[in-house]
């Protein structure tokens, strides 16, 4: 059944070469943990992506209950965590995944650094990786405010004060991030928009570039 559906589509669109192209690629011996166990350090990039997928999925489901509004944000988070089935697990995935994705990304960066994989011709991929790093930090910063509890509020106040210390532009950056003069209703909607639309959009585009380049250039050689 599945095969005949696949064949029907394949006859018309010739999709086999497309996924073959994606799926068939060299995995050199020096990055394969089955050959050298120490090669597990090459897994951190993939693990970062895996956790990112979990973040996107669990985040999509969390927005089914979450309200980005100062009256209801805390109440809706409290409701989805304590009253909805598996709410603890879904929010837990997003909460712990947020930290884990930073950890994995950091380990991936260390591996790339110490294997010298950032060197020519892969400098552009390092730059894109750094941009991904900053987008991830942005996602962490904006997501932290959304539960609208004391921790979230003061973390954002501190974060915005740090941003405000930028010479000359600081004041404007702070007002832009706050959407006003205080951390309040407009900050929350703003951070929500950044957290679920703008930053994930940027992240997916950058990830696309990251993966395209690694596929085009291949994995860097052994040490």
């Amino acid at each position: 059944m599945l095969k005949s559906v696949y064949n029907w589509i394949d006859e018309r669109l010739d999709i086999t070469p497309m996924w073959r192209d994606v799926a068939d690629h060299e995995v050199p011996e020096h990055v394969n943990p089955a050959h050298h166990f120490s090669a597990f350090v090459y897994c951190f990039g993939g693990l970062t992506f895996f956790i990112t997928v979990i973040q996107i999925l669990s985040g999509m489901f969390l927005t089914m209950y979450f309200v980005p509004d100062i009256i209801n944000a805390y109440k809706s988070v409290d409701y989805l965590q304590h009253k909805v089935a598996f709410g603890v697990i879904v929010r837990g995935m997003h909460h712990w995944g947020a930290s884990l994705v930073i950890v994995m990304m950091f380990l991936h960066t260390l591996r790339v650094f110490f294997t010298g994989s950032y060197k020519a011709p892969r400098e552009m991929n390092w730059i894109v990786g750094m941009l991904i790093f900053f987008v991830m930090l942005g996602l962490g910063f904006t997501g932290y405010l959304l539960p609208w509890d004391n921790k979230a509020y003061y973390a954002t106040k501190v974060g915005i004060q740090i941003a405000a210390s930028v010479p000359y532009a600081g004041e404007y950056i702070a007002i832009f991030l706050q959407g006003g003069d205080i951390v309040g209703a407009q900050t929350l909607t703003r951070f929500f928009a950044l957290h679920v639309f703008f930053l994930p959009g940027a992240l997916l585009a950058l990830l696309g570039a990251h993966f395209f380049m690694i596929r085009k250039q291949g994995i860097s050689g052994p040490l």
Partner: protein
Amino acid sequence: MREEHNQEAQESGQLPKKSRREMSRRQFLSYTLGGTGAFMVGVPLIFNLRFAVDPLLQKKQGTDYVKVAKVEEISEVPQAFKFTVHQVDGWYESEPTMEAWISSDQEGNIFALSPVCKHLGCTVNWNGSGDYPEQYFCPCHGAHYTKDGEALAIAPAPLDQYEVKVENGWVYLGAIHANERV
């Protein structure tokens, strides 16, 4: 995708014929990798999906009876009574105002009709139109109903009824259900 890869490889005869049904290396790998992948995607998804369909599986909360009117106030002519119910909507609790047209029939049985038109949900009024005296009339598309709520035009069903309870000289209203008088 992996499965297709596999089947295709078998068909094109890349694999040597074996008398025993041995598993090829490629088949083994696609099953183990596919299984691991499915597990890693499936487990998080199960939690997420159960989380998403929770409203479907939550127990319906029963409607409490609300004290609405004194029995002496009720006549054979329908009158509109407003009352509030306690509503829990996720994290939001409120006291929305409801309305009921309460009247008694010739035997003195008190009954209450919902003012929500069964055509498209506008609000009906008793004697709402001069063209249809002694009837409920909906201003939106001209649906009209008898005193018992029976639909005479446009609406596909009679007006819904409230659960009615009379206690100590007071009329209490409960849940809304389909009309049982017509």
